[in-house]
């Protein structure tokens, strides 16, 4: 059974401004893919914490030492719009 999805909601969460037609298409495709992916539910297993690193790494830290930052000009050169050292964007709507 293909899975039913609220594709508009998902697209909004992901900040993807897609047309109604595109959304329909993705909705169908996702339904089929998720049907296949839902096979993971066939596994009967204990609730799992989180996956450990394959080599069991833990406590990977850095010392509290200051390292050189990037050159600001090089950073801003890649930006679509800047002003006096700042990145410029249109006014934000209220964030989440």
């Amino acid at each position, binding site marked *: 059974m293909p899975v039913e999805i609220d594709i508009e909601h998902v697209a909004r969460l*992901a900040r993807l401004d897609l047309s109604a037609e595109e959304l329909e298409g993705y909705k169908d495709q*996702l339904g089929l893919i998720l049907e296949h992916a*839902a096979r993971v539910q066939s596994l009967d*297993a204990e609730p799992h914490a989180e996956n450990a690193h394959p*080599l069991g*790494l833990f406590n990977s830290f850095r010392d509290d030492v200051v390292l050189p930052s990037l050159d600001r000009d090089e950073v801003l050169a890649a930006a679509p719009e800047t002003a006096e050292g700042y*990145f410029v964007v249109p006014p934000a*709507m209220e964030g989440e």
Partner: protein
Amino acid sequence: MSPMPSVVEAGRWLRDGETTAVRLLEGALQRAANCEAQIHAFLTIDRERALETAARADADLADGIDRGPLHGIPIALKDNMCTRGVETTAASQILAGYRPPYDATVVSRLGEGGAVVVGKTNLDEFAMGSSTENSAYGPTFNPWDITRVPGGSSGGSAAAVAVGSSVAALGSDTGGSIRQPAALCGVVGMKPTYGTVSRYGLIAFASSLDQIGPLTRTVEDSALTLEVIWGHDPLDATSYSGDYPDPKAGLDRGVAGLRVGVVKELSGEGYEPAVESAMGEMVSRLEGAGVEVVEVSLPSFEIALSAYYLIAPAECSANLARFDGIRYGHRGQGSTTEGLMSRTRAEGFGPEVTRRILLGTYALSAGYYEAFYGQAQRVRAAIQEDFTRAYQQVDVLVSPTSPTVAFAAGERTANPLAMYLSDICTIPSNLAGHPAISVPVGLDSQGLPIGFQVMAPPLGEEVMYQVAAEVERFAGFELAPTLQEVAS
């Protein structure tokens, strides 16, 4: 034009004075020039920079400075690795023209090793795909038959090595993206143990699965290249800081006495007869050389693909959230930041990337997390357990690298699920974080390469290469794609 050498051969010629780094580079560039119109392996070739690096490599050698096996060797880099000041696009419109202000760690290590970067190779956009047809800059074609795909997502790197427009290349492997194109292009492709090669500067697809690895003409080349790029990196918190094995140690040891497991689940329906028979033949040869062959069942492999297509998109949906048109890359129109971000992303991402972001966002969203992402993690744990159990019985596991040889361009693009099935043999090693290698073992009746996969336990690169070297010797495979004539 003489055939392009391996890393080992080129290294010998350089030190014998038979050639120079500049000449090697020019040979590579000539081949690229001859082939690019037909295969489109490269997105960027920075001729000036490469010649400078080659000249420096020659000067160093003349001064007695020897930086190691990759010194003076032309290398290609998949275009999802950051190269400072050189366009890095991840084959996406959203990064058109982007020049990173820093080098990936592997790029720095290649530099310290005296390698000469020829250029940046084509890939499926953001490394998502199995055919390099998802590139925003046009597909790459298979040098053995240019109506077919080279595999993906590291299709450009595989094709470049196949025709010799670089001696070796780096790719990235998240679900098979080094091994599968290597198999389809008749070269050696290897994915290291997760955590042994730094991901700093690799444009992330799925953080817990991505690994950078070498694509080369020979197994020995692969081991040598791996040693240059792997090792602990303090800039990557998932980087392994313990003892690393010597991948070269078993190359000449042969396989007598080893136990090899043939994975039961990776055969049968969907596997081309030529692939299965090449598989069978090689297993017999190994048996004849003193290997104990056992059939091993890893039942969780049946749902590995399903787990992968929840975990990888989930992680990628977060990793690609940063592409919002604010600090770099393409920017769409918008009168509010929210509008700008949404427009930017809709314009900048291709369909496969969009599909995976939507899939991943859904799998993580409230109400669905447990049934999808949460459950996929459990499957992942089951896969790791199956592997562990298997390695109590055997030293390595083997399977075909891909169920099929190279398929026709456009054949699977309409059906995402069909495309995803290309990765069925390679995905389990990514989920477990284990090393695996694809070695070319022959051609099918259409002259298309078949790849043989060897999988080993974590940090088991030594035994993996040991078996791979023997497979390579038995196969006696000749790297001679049709396009080689053009290249010559």
